[in-house]
């Protein structure tokens, strides 16, 4: 393992089921992430992104290969040691935010700090500092259902950061946010992570967060493939491989790619209504 890597994945394979129903979700993957690096893993649905991320987070064991976080080899660890690794070294961000519905913003973050054994008072203090830094100082006593999606995801980011993890893992963090908030939230994540040299691995098929990544990897059928150039269908938001786009159109000198002719027709009927969304 590279001495300065936060995480090192060596020839990892993950199978589900056995015999004729066996699925190889991740095939022989290797990956190194260095401190402060933001890695985006993209790929179509079912390509193994979540499976890979779960293994990085110590939530799922590889069928073969090694995963090291810092000095610790996850694959050699006992089941009972993994919670502590997750608590101390990894921050998680989920697609559905997954805040605890009965707790306020402040307590949602403080609770995770408290899991490490520090007092409630101290954990609330830590949480407050972090939430204020993330612009949620006015929302400390709000319950999750009173927060907007972007705010919820910022609370989730605070929760992921509160124990000062080496690495933050995010699975489709923008899927439930509109494009503006999705990008803003990811920019914020990048900023706070970079400040303290925390690595970030984001799994997504959202093209629009490519810009915040230091490195983009393309996962397909459980393997890293060469990055294909992708574009977003302005109508439905799907990622389109531009070499194999089913439909294209030119509008005011720009080329647009579509998942199907239906989207293309819709676009051509009123192009500006689809383009404004991204022009805030």
């Amino acid at each position, binding site marked *: 393992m590279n001495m300065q890597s936060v995480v090192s994945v060596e020839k990892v394979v993950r199978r589900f089921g056995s015999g004729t129903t066996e699925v190889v979700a991740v095939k022989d993957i290797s990956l190194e992430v260095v401190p402060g690096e933001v890695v985006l893993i993209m790929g179509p649905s079912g390509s193994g992104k979540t499976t890979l991320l779960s293994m990085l987070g110590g939530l799922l064991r590889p069928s073969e290969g090694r995963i090291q976080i810092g000095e610790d080899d996850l694959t050699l660890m006992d089941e009972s040691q993994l919670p502590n690794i997750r*608590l101390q070294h990894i921050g998680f961000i989920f697609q559905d935010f997954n805040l605890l519905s*009965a707790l306020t913003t402040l307590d949602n973050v403080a609770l995770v700090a408290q899991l490490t054994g520090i007092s409630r008072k101290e954990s609330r203090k830590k949480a407050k500092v972090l939430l204020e830094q993330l612009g949620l100082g006015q929302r400390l006593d709000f319950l999750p259902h009173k927060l907007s999606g972007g705010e919820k995801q910022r609370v989730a980011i605070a929760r992921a950061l509160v124990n000062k993890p080496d690495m933050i893992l995010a699975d489709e963090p923008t899927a439930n946010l509109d494009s503006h908030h999705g990008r803003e939230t990811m920019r914020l994540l990048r900023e706070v992570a970079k400040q303290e040299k925390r690595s970030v691995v984001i799994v997504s098929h959202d093209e629009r967060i490519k810009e915040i990544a230091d490195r983009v990897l393309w996962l397909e059928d459980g393997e890293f493939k060469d990055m294909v150039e992708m574009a977003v269908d302005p109508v439905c938001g799907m990622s389109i491989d531009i070499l194999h786009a089913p439909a294209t159109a030119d509008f005011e000198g720009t080329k647009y790619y579509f998942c199907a002719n239906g989207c293309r027709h819709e676009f051509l009927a009123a192009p500006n209504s689809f383009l404004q969304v991204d022009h805030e």
Partner: protein
Amino acid sequence: MTYLALRNLFQNTFRLILSISGVASSIALIVLLRGFLSGIYVQVTAYLDNTPVDWVVSQEGIRNLLGGTSFLPPSTEDLAQGISGVEDIIPIVAQYAILDIHDEKVVGYMVGYDPDIGGGPWSLLAGRELDDDDEIILDWVMAEDHGLKIGDNIEILDEEFEIVGLSADTSSWMANFFFIKKEAAEQLLLAPEATSFLLMTAKPGYDKASIEARLRRRLQDVEILPSQVVKQNDLDLLVNIFAVPLKMMVSIAFAVGTAILGMIIYTATVSRASEYGVLKAVGGKNTQLYSLVVQQALLISVVGLGLGILLAWIAGQAVMEVYPKFLVVLRSNDLLPTIVTGIGMGLGAALLPALYLSRLDPAEVFRR
């Protein structure tokens, strides 16, 4: 983490109220059943508890007060006189007898005693002590049940008696007490000079074991039993009929209460599965999650416990108001076992949810 347990509970107030009511009603039922049983205990030993007596002397082979009939050999009372260390000797004629009240036959426990010596009612609700052979003191519940009051006449074995007093704490589920003079009782039983029991007390400062030894030497062919033993024999004879089904009902109430609480906590846990999954994923340990459900269960069971005891007390008062024959005794001695029962309910109810949490796969948080 207690605040999370609390917030989780208060987030669904309907479920919270439902679970507290479940615990409260089964605790109330348990306390009430136990109180009823304690009441029977108190009633069965009431006479010996309230009459000064260290030993009961009875006919050979008769080891109960309330069990059967006892007739002592005529010489017993004289022989018992003058034994060193014996303070009082109270002779009584006592057995079940049938009263004719308004053409209705009613069974009562008759105590014939000498008002100058003792062995009569210990608490008069109304009226006065006996003066004459044709006077009777009746348990007040029996009097009320049959619409009798002081000054009324009733018949016992064709003899007329006038009610001059009403005694308290002398009723029980099997028969209520009534008191007449000892000579009157002898006449009724056509057994002049007869005595059923001698109730003896020790002088203060004397060694009871040696008094008992002297008694045994002096009095042959009779039973000499410490009053504790007689009370226990009466309890064994009369209470076990109730104790077994009552204890069974207590166990059922406990099981039902635990099951209700368990089911509610289980559904609450399952409905929060994704939240507990998140806690696990971010590094919460199983023990931390167990403590969450255990705390929730205990909080409910402790509140339900307090409420249930209160409810039982109110219900007990109401029952005694309406049916004075039933004595519901809530003893402070029963408090600890009741608290243990309530906490046991909470812990029992947390078992299944804890098992569920231990099996919850944290990797599921990434899948929906």
